[in-house]
């Protein structure tokens, strides 16, 4: 008898505190699976965000160092510059990366810091109770957009990944989702590739992952995942946004 699917070794044996159907849980597992497969558990150093995933260090069995809200890319830069042989990833939500942390994120990408950023986009500020995020879509209701996001007052949602693609130092940027099994598998492949980009020393890599927040979207997990597919992907299309590793593709696959 063989177990063909189970808890990854790089995941601590702790029950997640995340809500039912939350994308964080799935994404954590995918990252841990990739760390297992690449056999880099003793080389990885992670930087959790402020937000629901602030407690990520309770789940990943790797060294982790907390960053102030939004500063993950700068803290990760410090760690990676001090220990270039380690694999450093910053795990950030939409507010962390595209509101308060925009400058640090853009400049880390611009400098081509060899870090991997996992950008969890659930279009809302989850931990603080469901306020508008930079990636809340027009018309989407949140606690600070009770009538739905309005471009006059709030502007349109921000395409951070597309913005980062313009920077010279960014090498691989892909947007995926975890709303269907197929997308989950694609997300894992993207995370795997992003880590490999770092391991090859090629530059800045980022995976943006559309993720459900059933509690604050006021939908069931099944409905929330459907909504990602029907509405969110219209504004945030799933695709490889940038990939300059073409020449190194054999090494990566």
């Amino acid at each position: 008898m063989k177990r063909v699917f189970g808890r990854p070794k790089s995941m601590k044996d702790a029950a997640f505190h995340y809500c039912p159907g939350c994308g964080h849980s799935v994404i954590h597992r995918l990252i841990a699976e990739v760390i297992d497969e690449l056999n880099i558990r003793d080389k990885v150093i992670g930087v959790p965000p402020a937000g629901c995933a602030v407690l990520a260090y309770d789940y990943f069995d790797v060294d982790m160092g907390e960053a102030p809200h939004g500063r993950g890319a700068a803290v990760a830069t410090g760690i990676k510059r001090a220990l270039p042989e380690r694999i450093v990833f910053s795990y950030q939500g939409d507010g962390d990366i595209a509101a308060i942390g925009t400058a640090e994120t853009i400049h880390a990408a611009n400098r081509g810091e060899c870090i991997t950023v996992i950008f969890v986009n659930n279009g809302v500020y989850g931990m603080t109770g469901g306020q508008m995020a930079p990636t809340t879509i027009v018309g989407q209701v949140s606690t600070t957009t009770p009538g739905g996001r309005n471009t006059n007052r709030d502007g349109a949602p921000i395409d951070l990944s597309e913005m980062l693609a313009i920077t010279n130092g960014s090498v691989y940027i892909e947007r995926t989702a975890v709303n269907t099994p197929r997308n989950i598998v694609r997300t894992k492949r993207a995370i795997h590739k992003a880590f490999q980009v770092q391991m090859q020393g090629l530059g800045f890599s980022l995976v943006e992952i559309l993720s459900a927040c059933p509690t604050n979207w006021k939908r069931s997990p099944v409905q929330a995942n459907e909504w990602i597919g029907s509405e969110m992907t219209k504004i945030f299309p799933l695709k490889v946004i940038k990939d300059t590793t073409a020449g190194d593709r054999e090494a990566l696959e």
Partner: protein
Amino acid sequence: MSEKLLMRGTHAIAEAAVRSGCRFYFGYPITPQNELTEYMASALAGLEDGVFIQAESELAAINMVIGVSMTGKRVMTSSSSPGISLKQEGISYLAAQELPAVIINTMRGGPGLGNIAPSQGDYFQATRGGGHGDYRTIVLAPSSGQESADLTRMAFEYADHYRTPVLILGDGMIGQMMEPVVFPDPIDPGSLPPKPWVLDGAKGRSSRIIKSLILDPAAMEEHNWKLFRKYEMIERELPQAERFFTDDARLVAIAYGTASRIAKGAIKRVREMGLKVGLFRPKTLWPFPARELRELSSVVSDFLVFEMSTGQMLEDVKLALEGRRRTHFYGRPGGVISTPDEIAKVITNIYYRQGLETET
């Protein structure tokens, strides 16, 4: 030991940092300390293991400092007043996460954009937290180029020993003045003792977490008291002050940094006129040398606090003296630099007004 070099204060601090085994510097240009940043840029470029980043802001710089510090290596950042304001969030985190780091503030006129002339307006910011939460920052105040170099070396030692951020409070005058400096032998960063708490990849050991989030109030309280006890230990072990002509003094000036240099000049003048005046110069602003000051106050009746501000260290002096002695104040904020003659006049006025010439 190096030979005697003629250096400006900002350069002396930078050279001292590199000689202390610091190989990581993150900064952002701001007058009047750009020479420090520029010196680090070329010094670290010349070292195989040196890393210099001109960060996108002072805020980004302090967060890069956090990252390096988590890995156990010596790291420094520098700025001036408004930029130090930007770093306060990061300094709070460094203190909470018990991470060593050295931060250099070359003070300028303030508040707000202020001006680029030297002032001492950031005493409160430095010694009263500046950032949020129950923490203290060790604050060292050099008054010369040599002392800038010496205190920089000590700053790295204290930061590592106590696992806490250390701030060096200079000002634009000390930063720009060229003075002779002798440096101790350089430290090889590889020779520094390893730290058992660092993040460097969980190889052959269980994974580590460095954080400051403690949701359970009871556990948070425990952490707060733990930090408090550390600060109490620092308060016992670290206060330092210089006493200049205090043995027979009836009036003692209290000043630090550039103000103390001016005060020394003033005291030499009034001593020539027969006035018995001395200077008490704190070298550590936090922990403030309160005990040392109180000892001195047992034989001195009058103190004159002289600051290049509207009166900040004055409060610590009053706290230390507990109202038992007459405390006078003279302040010139805004970047105005008093002359020794001006301070001599102030001293003389107070001396005679208080009838100190008739004391035995």
